[in-house]
């Protein structure tokens, strides 16, 4: 932590702006309350994949001049910073709480939504409970006839207090908790946690273990992309897609269950190693299952992509330009569907993805069609990668490595490219080697605003399709 430059607040702010303009990307920005001050940390990544971190301190009352007006991508980070630490942020256009942490339950229903005045405008309120078996969130549409002028998304209903809970337990036994940050991204969050803790305790893993974790991560991606395509098909009224993609997902998650006992990969990744077994007989089954998914996937893709219904509903719907995606700081498959090539798997300096690279995927148009196409392309790429990986692997019986004490005064940033995008865990230890700060970041946190912007000028009836094409996490945002 001593190696991290601590700048004076104005200089820190200028530095964030300068780096962003020079093409560096803000990975995360968070604060930690220290009595009357707040310590703020920003992490950047340049195009070569190098990560740099800067910090500053500001008093709660004086605060600093907000960055959002200059860098809209930081709006969610500054809103969170203000909500979690109370630091004054001037000139921020919209300090609405992200998740109403620690506030009265009535706060979430009394904070005003954006208003647009006009005789021919009307509002449509949806949520927090939606019509399906799905997590809660409030959507407020400002409409002119059927056309959406503005959509405001208010979340926070799923806020449990994960970040506080993480600091209460034994830092080496947090995997079950972190698997529930976003239950559909259990592997991504568990891996980020394990990587951070292993780095803090000086535990180096064999490359075989890294491969086993990557297999689990890609299986999770395959399962959730299939789930997303199934849901999207259902929302389109393309029922054959809904049932067939759904059936293939069952094969993917049942394969995961054979490996670790859980269809969601619970227990698959643990500090110091893995919790999966792969005896020879099972390896043959896993290979056969992947072969079957790949074979049948081609059949349904052929039907899905050629269908006039599908094309008519998806093409040109929910457009998000590359410029908007960059400006809003979107990440993951949503960014890649708008032509922004951000993928942590392509920037690994070591580990499984560096040894065996995965074919990068990109779509340019940024509409729902592109977001469906990117999922299909990534599915195929992941299946090819999995088959190559499992062809050379024989067994996973490395015992878990013991973890030493956590190194004192460290700041660790762990980054894993989950199926939605980059999952980032930032951990700080005290001088005594205690866990003192744990900042969780699910890609949904940055991407929700992308959904809100993409819906503008679309019909309100297109919203479910747009929503499903982004497929964001409520609980991952709300923590």
């Amino acid at each position, binding site marked *: 932590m001593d190696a991290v430059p601590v700048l004076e607040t104005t200089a820190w702010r200028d530095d964030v702006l300068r780096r962003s303009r020079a093409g560096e990307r803000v990975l995360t920005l968070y604060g930690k309350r220290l009595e009357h001050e707040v310590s703020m940390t920003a992490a950047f990544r340049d195009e070569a994949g190098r990560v740099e971190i800067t910090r500053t301190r500001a008093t709660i009352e004086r605060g600093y001049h907000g960055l959002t007006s200059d860098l809209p991508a930081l709006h969610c980070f500054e809103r969170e910073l203000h909500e979690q630490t109370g630091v004054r942020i001037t000139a921020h256009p919209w300090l609405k709480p992200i998740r109403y942490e620690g506030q009265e339950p009535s706060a979430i229903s009394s904070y005003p939504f954006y208003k647009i005045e006009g005789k021919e405008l009307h509002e449509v309120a949806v949520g927090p409970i939606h019509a399906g078996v799905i997590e809660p969130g409030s959507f407020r549409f400002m409409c002119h006839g059927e056309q959406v002028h503005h959509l405001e998304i208010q979340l926070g209903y799923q806020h449990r207090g994960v970040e506080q809970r993480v600091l209460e337990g034994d830092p080496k036994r947090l*995997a079950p908790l972190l698997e529930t940050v976003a239950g559909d991204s259990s592997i991504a969050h568990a891996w980020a946690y394990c990587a951070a803790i292993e780095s803090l305790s000086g535990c180096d893993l064999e490359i075989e273990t890294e491969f086993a974790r990557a297999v689990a991560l890609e299986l999770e991606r395959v399962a959730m992309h299939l789930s997303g395509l199934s849901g999207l098909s259902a929302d389109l009224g393309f029922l054959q897609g809904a049932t067939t993609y759904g*059936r293939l997902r069952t094969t993917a998650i049942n394969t995961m269950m054979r490996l670790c006992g859980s269809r969601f990969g619970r227990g698959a990744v643990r500090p110091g190693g893995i919790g999966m077994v792969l005896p020879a007989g099972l390896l043959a089954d896993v290979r056969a299952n992947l072969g079957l998914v790949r074979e049948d996937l081609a059949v349904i893709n052929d039907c899905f992509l050629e269908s006039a219904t599908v094309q008519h509903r998806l093409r040109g719907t929910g457009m998000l330009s590359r410029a908007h995606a960059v400006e809003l700081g979107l990440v993951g498959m949503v960014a890649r569907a708008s032509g922004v090539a951000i993928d942590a798997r392509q920037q690994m300096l070591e580990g499984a993805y560096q040894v065996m690279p995965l074919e990068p995927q990109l779509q340019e148009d940024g509409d729902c069609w592109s977001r469906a196409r990117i999922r299909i392309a990534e599915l195929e790429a992941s299946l090819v990668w999995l088959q190559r990986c499992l062809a050379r692997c024989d067994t996973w019986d490395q015992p878990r490595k013991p973890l030493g004490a956590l190194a004192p005064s460290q700041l660790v940033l762990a980054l894993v490219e989950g199926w939605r995008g980059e999952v980032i865990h930032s951990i700080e230890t005290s001088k005594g080697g205690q866990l003192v700060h744990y900042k969780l970041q699910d890609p949904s946190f940055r991407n929700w605003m992308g959904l809100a912007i993409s819906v503008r000028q679309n019909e309100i009836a297109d919203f479910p399709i747009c929503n499903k094409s982004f497929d964001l996490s409520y609980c991952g945002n709300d923590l």
Partner: protein
Amino acid sequence: MTLFKSLRVRLSQGTQYIPDLRGAVPSGFRGLPILAVGACGPECNECRAACPTGAIALDPLRLDLGRCVFCQACVEACPDEKIRFSSEPKMGAARREELVLHSGAAEKTRVRASASFSRIFGRSLKMRQVSAGGCNACELELNAIANVNFDVQRFGIEWVASPRHADALVLTGPLTRNMKAAVELAWEAMPDPRFLVAVGACAISGGLYEGAPGVDRTFLESVGPSLFVPGCPPHPLTFINAVLDFLGVD
């Protein structure tokens, strides 16, 4: 052309439904724990110390399925191999205390059909799901009960969009403060007769989030669940079997 492509998909799809949902055992599933008979080592506390949700009690060894997140930490910690997980998915219970497993206890049916429930809902059950802090794992598994594999509609059981049409409220998540008002509204909107189902360790006991700052479980203190479905997340077969047992469907 589209017709032929569509027929090809239909051919590849085959027949996917599981014919016997009552007897199916998911291969590799970490399900019902089995506690071995016999005394533990003197003052051994390893499993209880390792458990992230306080699901284990000692002297004698007991395991609360309503708290268990099936993480296997106890199995790894136990020096005597006293605990193992079977792939049995049937774990539901109609009473909270029946979720507590005892060492060497004989097999028993933990969900008994109630004659009145069976008469009212046995041939048609409409359910409304509400997630209040659920992590989307329980929600995905609850969606899965209606997919082509599990096809629970064959029993007249269906999800509905409005609580006004629902007989059962199926809750997931530890119940967050920010969802308290919405959960109460959903419950109040349901016509009688109605009942509550708690799905997953979070909803049953708070699970990993018991006592967390964003959690408020007072709704469950005033309205007790009639059915508990343990798991993290529960397998679709765990849910389906618990509901069928509860309704007295064979």
